[in-house]
């Protein structure tokens, strides 16, 4: 290397760059910790330490090359993975979305009941002379008037009040009305509980109207239970993110919170037939889809490569046209195909002069998916195969034909086995890719057709990954926990398939 990279100039440059990056990261870390994002803050602090340690000492030279890559890798690849695995051990779903403290708060807010007559009162909101929020309540039917704050309820004498034509008190001594604008602009007034008789209280329901409620549920943090004050019913923490009635655990208080359920999501995959049956169905289709895709694209590509594996007029033109599907962004092509399969105006029905509802019939939808994937995939295998065909030593083929084999025999006995051996890692990689080919399924059929009226989540063309997406985001009930468990499962499946492929390719490395 030239001396520019080694001199004092370079050193100064290095220190300036390092200081700049450290400054930015320190700023980010400080604001992260200030707003309570401890995990992110900790990651940033560790990054700062690692970066400065690596570039200021001679601890490890390889590390100097790695640090930026590794940090990005951890932040956006490893961290989401860990997050997903952690999520899979939680009951992270609709109804169990918030933290426990927030859930207790919500349960308590909902744990109230109106009094027997569902009484409502006309009232005026304001402040007492010592500045605390108060309401002037008029019980028009009984001709009673109260001044109520959060702490006390005062019975007023009607002679002290000015009462309007409807019998509603508007002013009282020691009470100042709050302007309407202020009431409207803040929603905190509707959350205040003003005292009423016994353990009842009044909440402002609308402008000038209050309703009588009392608290029924109380939380006991010592035993971690909820108790109904009136009936004495006890709700216990079921350790799965909900309070349930002690004697009949099916009765739960909503909302729940996200609680660790450990392997329950995984157990559901095996034990719960509502989850297991569609999962098996989807898994079978995933395997069929991936294998048929690999088979069809490979066969088509190979045939094409064989056809053009000879000096032919116009071969270049053919080639440049044939790789077009591969060169186009696949998301766009899939959307185009989706338009072409439209049952009313689509080009396919137009061309075939048919009126097939491609995406409403399970088998037609599957055929469409396979056809589109063939279109997307064959150029890749055409390129690979034609390259590999040229790599097969021509002496081998000549020797075979001298031995009296006809071209078909040569192909079957010599070319194909050799090709398969060369290409098996790529075939396996293609299988693994299509196993998780989310874009195709999601954009073409959306996994459908599925019978949503029956609450069916798995559609006829859903593969594991799109099915998981459906579970996580696609329905009214979002179940991140279960979806994460399935994605961990997919990860192991695909990883073992690919690991098998790697092993195969290593075996070949030792041969050559």
């Amino acid at each position, binding site marked *: 290397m030239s001396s520019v990279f080694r001199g004092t100039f370079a050193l100064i440059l290095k220190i300036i760059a390092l200081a700049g990056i450290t400054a930015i990261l320190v700023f*980010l870390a400080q*604001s*992260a910790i*200030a707003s309570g*994002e401890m995990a*992110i803050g900790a990651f940033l602090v560790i990054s700062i330490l690692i970066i400065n340690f690596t570039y200021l000492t001679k601890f490890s*030279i*390889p590390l100097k*090359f*790695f640090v*930026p*890559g*590794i940090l*990005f*890798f951890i*932040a*956006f*690849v*490893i*961290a*989401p*993975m860990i*997050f*997903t695995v952690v999520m899979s051990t939680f009951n992270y779903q609709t109804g169990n979305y918030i933290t426990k403290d927030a859930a207790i708060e919500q349960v308590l807010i909902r744990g109230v009941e109106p009094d027997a007559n569902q009484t409502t009162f006309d009232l005026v909101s304001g402040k007492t002379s010592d500045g605390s929020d108060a309401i002037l309540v008029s019980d028009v039917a009984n001709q009673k008037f109260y001044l109520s704050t959060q702490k006390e309820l005062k019975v007023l004498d009607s002679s002290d009040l000015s009462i309007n034509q409807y019998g509603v008190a508007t002013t009282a001594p020691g009470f100042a009305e709050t302007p309407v604008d202020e009431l409207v602009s803040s929603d905190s007034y509707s959350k205040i509980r003003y005292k009423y008789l016994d353990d009842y209280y009044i909440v402002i329901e609308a402008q000038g109207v209050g309703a009588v409620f009392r608290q029924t549920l109380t939380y006991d943090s010592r035993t971690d239970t909820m108790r109904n004050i009136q009936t004495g019913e006890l709700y216990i923490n079921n350790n799965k993110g909900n309070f349930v009635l002690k004697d009949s655990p099916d009765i739960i208080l909503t909302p729940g919170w996200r609680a660790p359920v450990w392997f329950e999501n995984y157990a559901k995959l095996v034990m719960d037939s509502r989850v297991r049956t569609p999962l098996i169905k989807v898994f079978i289709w995933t395997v069929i889809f991936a294998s048929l895709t690999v088979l069809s694209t490979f066969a088509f590509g190979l*045939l*094409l490569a064989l*056809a*053009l594996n000879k000096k*032919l007029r116009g071969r270049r033109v*053919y080639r440049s*046209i*044939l790789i*077009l599907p591969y060169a186009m962004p696949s998301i766009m*092509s899939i959307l*185009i*195909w989706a338009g*072409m399969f*439209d049952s009313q*105006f*689509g*080009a396919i029905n*137009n*061309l075939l002069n048919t009126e097939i509802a491609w995406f409403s019939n399970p088998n037609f939808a599957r055929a469409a998916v396979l056809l589109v994937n063939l*279109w997307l995939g*064959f*150029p890749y295998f055409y390129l690979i195969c034609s390259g590999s065909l040229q790599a097969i030593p021509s002496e081998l083929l000549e020797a075979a034909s001298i031995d009296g084999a006809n071209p078909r025999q040569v192909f079957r006995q010599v070319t194909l086995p050799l090709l398969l051996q060369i290409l098996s890692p790529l075939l396996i990689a293609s299988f*693994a890719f299509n196993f*998780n080919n*989310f874009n195709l399924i999601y954009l073409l059929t959306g996994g459908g057709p599925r019978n949503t009226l029956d609450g069916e989540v798995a559609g006829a063309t859903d593969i594991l*990954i799109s099915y*998981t*997406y459906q579970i*996580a985001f696609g329905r009214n009930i979002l179940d991140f926990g279960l979806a994460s468990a399935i*994605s961990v499962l*997919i*990860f192991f499946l*695909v*990883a073992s398939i*690919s690991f098998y492929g*790697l092993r195969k390719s290593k075996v070949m490395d030792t041969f050559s």
Partner: protein
Amino acid sequence: MNKWLRENLWRHSFATFTCIFALFPLYLVVLSSFKSGGSLQLTSFVPREFSLENYKMLFTSPKIPFLSWVKNSLIISSTVAISSVIIGAASAFAFSRLRFKGKKFGIQLLLLVQMFPAVLALSAVYVIMERVYTFAPGVGLGTQAGLILVYLGGSMSVNIWLLKGFVDSIPAE
């Protein structure tokens, strides 16, 4: 002549058939781009009308800020491309040329994490960026900088793999 036919006819016809198959959707798109009217509907496979209406709309309609899309794409893709090549190449170089402990493990890890379904890690990335947004709105959710960061990080393992292959193929001298 007969021999030529026997040897080459199937090749030409198969190649031609495949070319039609490959071009068909693209042809439709080009065809409908020159048609007036909105959707990818087809009444005939032969061009009957020629209108530049759609193209005019692309560049002039205020509802379709096509040029700003192009600008965004250019900014994001070029930033990501340049930085990921620099960062990735450094790591790839180390993997390819330097000797150190845990090299094999590192390479295998890079390969392994690529098997994780990216679509689902996406929700986790979303949550992370949402939290970043709470303290650093400039690089959090919904910003170009945030998108660039996610692109950079997400493609890191693939990039290192690809670049490692290139560095491997360069002679050490």
